[in-house]
């Protein structure tokens, strides 16, 4: 075993440094693409094409004083953002960027990723709870609402892929990917896309962070490093979920001519674009409407999708 290579993968690419870059890139891309849909320019003055605007903003946030609410649980308040970031970064370790470029690969990749993602809302609830403030508390409770409505379609759609390919391992799933697999899993793809928007609190399902209603949800009381870690965890969550979508439904690193990781990033950009376009065009829905939507439409559809895949597989 080449320890140097493993260390490089963990710390540089596709590990920690790359993930930090991903946060920068997601932030920048979101601003630029949404600005384009608004008919604006977006970041422009700092650095070429405004690339350094995000860097400037992040360093500005880092300089902020860490303010802890008088009544807040100090230890938990400080620990929760780090835990959230760590959990999302763990999921990122399973993503295969090419046949060999991954940090961890086990026979149970998919299940572990989904389990880690499902335990995230509990962390965010904690973030709201330990803030001992009203708006974060409501935001925390709303995260649980997202959990009830989003995670089940996510699991059902994700596992239907494993059902079709007969494996939980990401690399194997990508290797077995072909046109028939893509077509069979098309319904699952749509369900998964909607579910990742719910799980990652993206508009129109950004109910726990609804600015016009509850300020910034569980992030309200956080400043400085804590805020950056929590917000970074949210951005990483989008990346991780987009990466899972690409791996499960769009053939991951597969593609002609270009190296695997380039194809991977191109496909992720497509998913990003879709998420940002939805953000720029769709108003937020209410939380009772979300539950109605998921339990009346999304979950039955996901179950039918599983039945459909079983039938096709039996044929």
């Amino acid at each position, binding site marked *: 075993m080449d320890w140097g290579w493993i260390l490089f993968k963990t710390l540089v690419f596709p590990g920690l440094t790359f993930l930090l870059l991903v946060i920068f890139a997601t932030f920048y891309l979101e601003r630029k693409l949404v600005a384009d849909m608004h*008919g604006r320019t977006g970041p422009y003055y700092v650095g070429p094409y405004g690339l350094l605007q995000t860097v400037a903003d992040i360093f500005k946030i880092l300089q902020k004083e860490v303010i802890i609410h008088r009544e807040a649980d100090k230890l938990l308040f400080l620990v929760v953002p780090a835990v959230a970031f760590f959990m999302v970064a763990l999921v990122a370790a399973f993503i295969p960027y090419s046949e060999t470029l991954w940090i961890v690969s086990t026979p149970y990749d998919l299940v572990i990723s989904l389990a880690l993602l499902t335990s995230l809302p509990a962390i965010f609830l904690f973030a709201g709870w330990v803030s001992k403030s009203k708006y974060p508390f409501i935001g925390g409770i709303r995260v649980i609402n997202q959990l009830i409505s989003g995670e089940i379609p996510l699991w059902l759609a994700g596992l239907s892929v494993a059902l079709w390919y007969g494996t939980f391992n990401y690399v194997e799933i990508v290797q077995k990917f072909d046109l028939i697999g893509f077509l069979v899993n098309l319904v699952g793809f749509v369900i998964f896309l909607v579910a990742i928007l719910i799980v990652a609190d993206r508009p*129109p399902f950004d*109910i726990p962070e609804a600015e016009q209603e509850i*300020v910034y949800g569980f992030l309200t009381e956080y400043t400085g490093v804590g805020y950056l870690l929590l917000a970074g965890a949210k951005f990483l969550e989008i990346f991780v979920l987009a990466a899972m979508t690409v791996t499960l439904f769009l053939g991951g690193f597969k593609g002609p001519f270009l190296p695997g990781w380039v194809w991977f990033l191109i496909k992720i950009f497509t998913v990003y674009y879709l998420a940002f376009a939805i953000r720029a065009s769709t*108003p937020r829905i*209410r939380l009772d409407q979300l539950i109605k939507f998921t339990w009346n439409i999304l979950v039955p559809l996901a179950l039918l999708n599983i039945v459909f895949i079983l039938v096709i597989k039996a044929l």
Partner: protein
Amino acid sequence: MYKGAQIITEPIGKEGDLMVLNWGVQHPASGPMRIKVWLDGETIVKVENDPGYVTRNMEKMLEYRTWENAVVNVERICFIDDLGTILNWALAIEKLAEVEVPKNVEYFRVILAEVGRIVSHLIGVGGMFGALGVATPMMWVLSLREFYLDFLEHYSGYRISTAAIVPGGVRFEPTKEDMELLKKAIKETEKRWPEYKEVFKDNPTLVERYKGVGIIPKELVYKLGLRGPVARASGVAYDYRKTYPYSSYEDFNFNVVVKEEGDAYARFLVVLEEIEESVKIIKQAMEGMPEGDKWKVRVPKKIKAGETFSAVEWARGGIEYFVVSDGGTEPYRVKISAPSFMNIWALEYIAPGHKLADLATIFASLYICHGDLDR
């Protein structure tokens, strides 16, 4: 939901039963006012308005301004549509001084007032989307608003707070370039409007969030004296431009937009469709502009003692001034009755029973301007 015209006055629940949420003063959607919300989970039990954080004592200040100088105070009642408030001031002073302005001035004032209405309504439409966390419509309407602001800037030198109308006339003679800019703005509006309407009006998520929310029945409109788009969305066809025409509004052919539903979506539609009517009025006024080169008539420095009442239909509803003169160079007393301050009290009646998420949409649909809420 609205259960009879009654506010809950007795104390509700034991201590600790309900969460009391201060929705404002520092809140992204509240503006500079506090709304005290009693919450049972996510359901609103009771709402209490608490405006007054940016009070400027407008009425008292007016007593220390000369008749003409007061224009710059009056226009700051709400900067978004400043032209309606100055128009009302000019009309009040002219009534008091018994001055008649020429027809061409009246027509040009109508143009200015309607430009103000369009500018305000565009922001209103964007703001109602903004309450749902999507900024795209706001950016679109702001880019359209720029064309009107260009016209105002070229005419008066300022984009907002223009002081374009003065007692006795308008500040400057409108030039050919001014009218060209206005024509350009109208043309751009008509070009973009079908697309805007398609995107805004039939937006399924917006309809889902706004329809059936915050219903104001007709009785409540009469009880609280609600005005403007809020009243018209509840089926009360009250518009000063039609009921008590001023400044030659009787010459123009336009409809008063009235909806029967009374919900937030109806209020949104009223604001949206009034923009079309305003465009119609501006086009008629530009075509039928009477000949005349006198753009300002003399108003005496001292106005003889007396009192007068004047009202115009402003963007947010009817705005009314009661002005008293004691024969001096400044008003003896001014009383302003503005629509936002009337409309905000409907919130206490219609918000209970809704979810917390609906508070933002109901509040946005009441179409409040904080400047005129806390004069």
